[in-house]
C-alpha cells in the first residue's frame, strides 16, 4: 500500500487477555518501529526491526511484550496478560534508513488504540 497500515484501529480487551496488533509497513522499507503513545505524551520507543531481526528491543517494558517480523515485512506486536496500564495508542512506523545522507524519516501508521478494562 501507499502508507503504513495498522489493524485493528481500536481494540478493547479485558485485563489478563492476550492481544495482537498488526503492522503493514510501506513496501520496500527495511526498518520497522513500534512506539507506544499515552495521552498527552510523545511516542515512546518499544522495538526496532532491521529486516527480520529485532535490532533493538530495549524499549519493551517487560517480558509480556513481544514482537515479530518473520518475513521482513508485516510485523505483529503481542501483549500477554494485558494490564490496565497497557492502555495506549500503539504506533508502527517504517523507514528507508539512508545514513549516507544522514536522513531517517519515519512514516507512521494511524495507530492501534488499545483499551484494557
Amino acid at each position: 500500500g501507499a502508507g503504513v497500515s495498522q489493524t485493528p484501529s481500536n481494540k478493547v480487551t479485558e485485563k489478563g487477555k492476550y492481544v495482537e496488533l498488526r503492522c503493514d509497513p510501506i513496501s520496500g522499507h527495511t526498518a520497522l518501529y513500534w512506539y507506544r503513545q499515552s495521552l498527552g505524551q510523545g511516542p515512546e520507543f518499544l522495538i526496532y526491526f532491521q529486516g527480520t531481526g529485532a535490532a533493538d528491543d530495549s524499549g519493551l517494558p517487560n517480558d509480556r511484550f513481544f514482537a515479530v517480523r518473520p518475513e521482513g515485512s508485516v510485523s505483529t506486536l503481542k501483549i500477554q496478560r494485558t494490564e490496565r496500564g497497557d492502555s495506549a495508542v500503539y504506533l508502527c512506523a517504517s523507514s528507508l534508513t539512508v545514513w549516507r545522507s544522514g536522513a531517517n524519516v519515519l512514516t507512521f501508521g494511524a495507530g492501534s488504540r488499545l483499551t484494557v478494562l
Partner: protein
Amino acid sequence: GESVGLHLPTLSVQEGDNSIINCAYSNSASDYFIWYKQESGKGPQFIIDIRSNMDKRQGQRVTVLLNKTVKHLSLQIAATQPGDSAVYFCAENIGRSYIPTFGRGTSLIVHP
C-alpha cells in the same frame, strides 16, 4: 537522564500570525533532528528535518533553526492556518542510532 523536551505545552495563535514552537535537547551527541506534526486520531507526520552540521533549513512555510551552542531547536510556521492546528513533536537521533527519541509535544491551536 537525557531527553528531548518542549518549553510550552500549548501555543494559541491567530490565523495569519507566525508561530514559533521551541524544543530543548540535552544530548550533545544528537546529530539529526526531525519535526513531526500529529493531528487528532492520526500518526505523526514528517514536516522537516535538519542535520547537526546545519543552522537553518527552510521548507514550504516552515523553517527549522538549530542552535547547537544552547542545544535548542525551533520550528517556525509562517502565516499559520487553521489546518496547522495539531501537536508538534521534535525528535532526535543520537549519534548513529536509527531510533528517534521524541519529546512531549506542543499543542498548536490556530484561531480563525
